């Protein structure tokens, strides 16, 4: 992780995995019947890795992300994040883990409309009871290229700018794992590139781990590994694929 060139750091096997999924299944039950969204997923996300998760619609990508982040309880199986087993935690402990160790970026930008950009970014720190330092907030805003928009409200920003605010908000707590669900789903290719570079920078510069769900082969190509999900199971993976290779793998999966 000393090199700044776009070569991927090799995973050091002695390091503990940043995120460990062990035999995760998830069954949604409702009046209409039950759906097996995940049917046994085991995977280790190495620290500092950038992994894209792809798969047909309804294959369980979002469900996987939510279970991995402790937003939802898996039906069976365990999730271990940075050495902590999530299933044993109560709501408050889980929340504290979430705000200290995890960052989220979603397709809907998920900003609080009542707060300015500055306040939105500072919010996670305030929630921990810390007083956000101006320098910290401006540093992350700088990092996402929004230093001059600090006083605006989300409604006064473009979609790409809002997404960058969301990333800045995720960055400020220096989480060890980023969860992103279609972060570029609603953005044009130029803006997408900015967002993806920011995520990749996080893995390269700070050794943070990124798990990103996407439908876009170009976006997935930013990751060092693409994980394919089909019907609630891991169907395979592709390392350092080009967009064309990834697209081909996807279409063979959808067939």
């Amino acid at each position: 992780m000393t090199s700044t060139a776009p070569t991927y750091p090799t995973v050091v096997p002695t390091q503990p995995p940043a995120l460990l999924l062990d035999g995760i299944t998830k069954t949604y039950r409702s009046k209409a019947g039950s759906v097996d969204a995940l049917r046994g997923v085991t995977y280790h996300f190495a620290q500092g890795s950038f992994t894209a998760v792809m798969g047909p619609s309804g294959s369980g990508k979002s469900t996987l992300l939510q279970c991995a982040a402790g937003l939802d309880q898996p039906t069976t199986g365990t999730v271990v994040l940075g050495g902590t087993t999530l299933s044993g935690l109560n709501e408050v402990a889980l929340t504290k883990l979430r705000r200290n160790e995890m960052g989220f970026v979603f397709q809907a930008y998920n900003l609080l409309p009542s707060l300015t950009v500055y306040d939105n970014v500072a919010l996670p720190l305030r929630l921990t009871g810390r007083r956000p330092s101006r320098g910290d907030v401006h540093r992350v805003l700088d990092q996402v290229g929004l230093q001059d928009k600090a006083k605006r409200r989300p409604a006064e920003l473009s979609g790409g700018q809002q997404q960058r605010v969301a990333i800045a908000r995720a960055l400020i707590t220096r989480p060890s794992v980023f969860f992103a669900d279609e972060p570029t789903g609603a953005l044009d290719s130029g803006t997408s590139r900015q967002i993806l570079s920011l995520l990749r920078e996080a893995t390269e510069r700070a050794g943070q781990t990124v798990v990103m769900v996407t439908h876009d082969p170009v976006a997935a190509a930013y990751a060092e590994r693409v994980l394919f999900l089909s019907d609630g199971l891991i169907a395979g993976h592709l390392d350092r694929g080009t967009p064309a290779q990834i697209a081909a793998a996807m279409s063979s999966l959808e067939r």
Partner: protein
Amino acid sequence: MFYLSRQTVSRHRSLYAGSFIALAVGVFLLGLAATATAATIAYSGPVARSITVTTLGGRDLEPRQVRVPLSDADVSGLQTVLSLVGTISGFITIFVIASTFAFAVASRRREIGLLRLIGATPSQVRRMVLGEVLVVALAASLTGAVLAQLATPLLLSKASYTELAPVKLEPASPWVPLAIAVGIGLVVAMLGARSAARRAGRVGPVDALREAALEPPRIGPVRITFGVLFLAGFITLLALIRPSTGEGVTPLAMFTPMLLVIALTLLAPVVVPWVGRLWALPLIAWTRVSGRLAQSNVVAAPRRSASLAAPILAISAIAGSMVLSLSFAADSAEATIRDTLRAPIVVEGFADLGEVPGVTAVDAGIPLQLIRISSDDAELEDAEGIDPAVASRTRDLTAISGDISRLTGNTVAVSKEMAGFDSYQVGDEIPVTFTDRSATKLRVVAVVKDAQGVNPSILIPLDLVRRHAPTAQPERIFVDGVDLTTLNEHLSGTTAHAVPAAEWEAEQAEGVREGNRLGLILLLGPAALYSAIAIANTLLMGSLQRRHEFITSRLLGATPAQIRRMVLWESGLVGAVALSLGTAITLTVGILIRHAMNSGLTDVPMTVPWAVLTGIAGICLTLAVGSALAPTTYILRRSQPSAAVD
């Protein structure tokens, strides 16, 4: 989290404007009741106009000194009314605040989920919601208090020299009463918002990611438990409505529906969709699409519908029950007066009828007031001095126990109601103090039927009255054995005149109704005003929140008229559900009270104040539909379908 609360409130101004107004008006009414009560407490009549007596005390009661003001300086009537006004205002305020905030939380599920996602703990979210309430409540309570202070002189000048407070009232120091009103406002707001805050704390972080604007329909076991408890309380109170309820009818008519209103509101997420489905049947048959849409909107969001229905239910049930019960009370009073009076003629005023030829009975009872002392209190009571031999011929003085003919010397006959309240039995001694300050004990010789309007609750021998109030004179005389014209000829030249008994009875009944009307206006006026604000507020809020939905529908090709129709049916449906529940409560309470009061009476007239009742329903429905349609029209006019894209 307080910092966040402040930001949220200023952002969601439309969501909180309603709560602000509702609470400000609530505190205004409470404050006004408080400052006016302070004025009545501060009022001290001339010293000669009151008598201080010592209560008896009892097993756990210390005897205490009570200063009883004499009739012409009595402000307790006003105090009673003010405390009732305060109670109703407080009740409705809890209600409005609870439903407003439940609504605010339900419509901000995603935002709250987002907070949880980025690391807010459930208790932080709870505190944020409570903080929001505090921001709104502080501003609103202070505004209400200032308004109350400004309006106090006006209220006092209107209340002075009336039947309720026949004295001149001056404003007292406002600090304590206003502080109390503000305090109550804050506490009430916090109580009202508690369940909303708790529900907000249960929103999970995934809710930020799901498009689930619709809340889960299940309601918690705690809510159900409390709903059932209040229902049980309601049934208990209903069981209390029995013959002999008498004077207790007004509070019972007020509190009984309140309990059921609370019960139904707690259970509303279950009850409202159910009744809504029922009402939607004819609507769907008639309108097809818009009726069906309205039905599914009402049924699929039970919490929201429940919030919208709650204030309509509250005011229609409470106002309806009181109007109907008091009207029925007047009916039964009318029948009682008719049944009690036996003499065919009543002379209004006083004249000596000794030498009118043919007269067989002249029942010239003399009214007076005396202080009755019980174990914990001493009160000024109306009494009448009668000659039992004559009076039992001109009126029905049937003794339930004891013997009325033994009413001589230091004795008393009490009404069944008073005997019931204070458990007096024949042979007991009641300590009294007359207005000439002489104290004595009166032995109970009989308990007689209640006959408000003809007999006061306390009857004493005529001699006793003459001794302690030598100047007192009869105000009406019941006469038998002579015809009306002869009697009126005899009375010409005096201020008195004779009327047939039926006419006098009708006058008395009208007097009762008149008094009820004044009471209703005083009690329900502020509550009605307040509920109107609440109803408009919730619906306004509801429609403003649906801006996006309306615009999306426009984008999908719905015409503004179609959307307006849907909103019309929807709000109409919610209104109908609330009003039908309100009607059910009104009928239950009304019928039971009527049944209780009419035991032992025959041929009781039945006066249903249709105009007032349909008026209440009409206003509720108009308000409901109007305040849903107005913002919808506004939104539709202001926004083009393209706005849905951003």
